[in-house]
């Protein structure tokens, strides 16, 4: 079995990949073949269809989550109980408090700014000649990895002294306007805002797509009625468009907020969490896998989980409300 674990050449890798897929198909085929008989008790069929997924989810999500929650009450090496000491550390340590503050900035700013940009853009390009192209431009960052997006923006922020030829676009603009070039990623809180801009750049396309679809679904009658009343474009936007798509806006904001809480790639790639830019998701990685502080790492993961819950509850309640209205 050694060759299944040790793959050197590309050919070996593809062979092991093929084996993995075939193995999976074979196991599933056998399970389905054995259980798909007439007069088989229903529970066996259910087990065959649901069992594999259920086993994986319990093994890989439920059980580890419970273990991590327990570990957050234990010391870094997992040997002894420390009660709430890890939580005390997270809230008591000034560096970690800054991490929490940064996370709050991310979770508030990214959803609001992305949704605003997405909404305005969706309204502006709606039913214009360039709609398709214009939307693809803003949508495309969703296909790029966050590592790729981070590199794209790190290059925009690239620093050269003012008197040298600039290579970063942002600094070149500053120099053209007569300012000195800046180290965008060095000073808090500005560096955090410049990192947030990258996430906004990625998420706006998502907001635009969802909101554009709901704008198109506003009934023509409403729009025509408003027209007869002689509303201006701005009034139309504020009093007709926005109220009509409010449920979609809520879904978009909460969804982006959840994604933002868990995002790790941008901070990791652009600053590595240095210069006071770290956020919970990044700090979790650093503590758990770089510094070997398992207790603090587990605590941060649990905090991440706790922070998601109110957003989800709000989201579900809004969905219920929206459904009752219909």
């Amino acid at each position, binding site marked *: 079995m050694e060759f*299944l*674990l*040790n793959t050197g050449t*590309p050919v070996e*890798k593809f062979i*092991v990949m093929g084996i*993995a897929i075939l193995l999976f198909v074979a196991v599933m085929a056998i399970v*389905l073949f054995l259980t*798909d008989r007439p007069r088989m008790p*229903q529970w066996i069929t*259910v087990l065959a*269809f*649901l069992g*594999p*997924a*259920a086993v*994986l989810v319990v093994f890989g*999500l439920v059980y*580890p989550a419970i273990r*991590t929650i327990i570990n957050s009450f234990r010391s870094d090496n997992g040997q002894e109980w420390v009660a709430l000491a890890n939580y005390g550390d997270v809230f008591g340590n000034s560096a970690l408090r800054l991490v929490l503050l940064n996370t709050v900035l991310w979770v508030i700013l990214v959803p609001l700014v992305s949704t605003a940009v997405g909404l*305005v*853009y969706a309204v*502006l390009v709606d039913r214009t000649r360039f709609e398709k192209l214009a939307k693809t431009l*803003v949508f495309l*960052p*969703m296909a790029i*990895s*966050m*590592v*790729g997006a981070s*590199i*794209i923006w790190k*290059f*925009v922020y690239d620093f050269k002294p003012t008197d040298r030829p600039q290579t970063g*676009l942002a600094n070149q603009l500053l120099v053209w306007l007569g300012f000195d070039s800046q180290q965008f990623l060095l000073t808090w809180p500005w560096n955090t805002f410049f990192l947030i801009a990258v996430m906004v*750049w990625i998420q706006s396309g998502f907001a635009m797509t*969802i909101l554009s*679809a*709901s704008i*198109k*679904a506003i009934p023509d009658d409403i729009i*025509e009625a408003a027209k007869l009343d002689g509303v201006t*474009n701005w009034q139309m936007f504020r009093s007709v468009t926005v109220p009509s798509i409010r*449920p979609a806006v809520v*879904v978009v904001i909460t969804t982006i907020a*959840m994604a933002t809480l*868990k995002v*790790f790639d941008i901070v990791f*790639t652009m600053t*590595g969490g240095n210069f006071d830019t770290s956020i919970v*998701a990044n700090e979790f*990685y650093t503590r758990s*896998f770089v510094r070997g502080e*398992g207790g603090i790492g587990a605590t941060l*993961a649990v905090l*991440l*989980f706790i922070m998601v819950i109110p957003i989800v509850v709000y989201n579900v309640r809004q*969905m219920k409300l*929206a*459904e009752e209205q219909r």
Partner: protein
Amino acid sequence: MSQATTVPDVPGPAPTKSSGPRKLTKAEQRAVDAKTRLSSPWASVIAIVIAILWSVPTLGLFVTSFRPEIDIRTSGWWTFFRDPAVTWANYDAVLYGGSTNFIDVFVNTIVITLPAVIIPITLALLAAYAFAWLDFPGRNMLFVAVFALQIVPIQITMIPLLTQYNNWGIVGSFWPIWLSHTIFALPLAIFLLHNFMMDIPRSLIEAARVDGAGHVKIFFQVLLPLLVPAIAAFGIFQFLWVWNDLLVGLVFGSAQEVAPLTVRLADLTGTRGTAWHLLSAGAFVAMVVPVTVFLLLQRYFVRGLLAGGVKG
């Protein structure tokens, strides 16, 4: 419950209605409105500024990836248009250069992605079938539990999972990466595919059952052909997610022989953060496949988004 869990009020793109000439004039009217809206100067300025902000950074790095190393260090990419000098050297260096060798990592990413897309979709299809068409006690409660699991941040599972993989002695191979991606994909996949499955008329399944078809036969012959768009929608999600993932790759696949593109690229940013000739070319090597797939299959991707498929 199935109704309560779909994302409401985010209807798909309005179908172009063709129920008579009157509708058409309305659509035209809105197109005319759009024109007047964009002809107001501020609106056009805002739209153009956004379009530029969203495309020029990528364009800049793209142009850079084709410039000679010395040019990249001494002048901005915008000067390229004044005197263009084009080279493949950066791509050559990043793909085959001894220290980067992206061609190897490119293979790793493909090897990681294919099973990590095929396996969870298959498992989720079967599970969604059970939730949609089989009756068993506790079904609704179990489905709510799966729905709720979507919000578990994957970070919370990582250390115990890694310990387990270590005990099994499979760390450093592709198996932990495939397994982890499969596990993390399941809740969303089951939820989404279940929603799509509920749209299939019950009478179709009943008819097949009356004809004496077993569950496996119904699944493969009746449901699967109807579910192709849904599978495509989720398939693209999962493909983009796995191909672009950094965290899972970093935690479960940091070993040299299995590390995916994103991990090597992030590593390169950390160790050689000013080697823009390598970073720019490397970034586009990593981007070319997902961007192509995305542009070709955008329609399905949007459909998946509108059905509530979002993963954090």
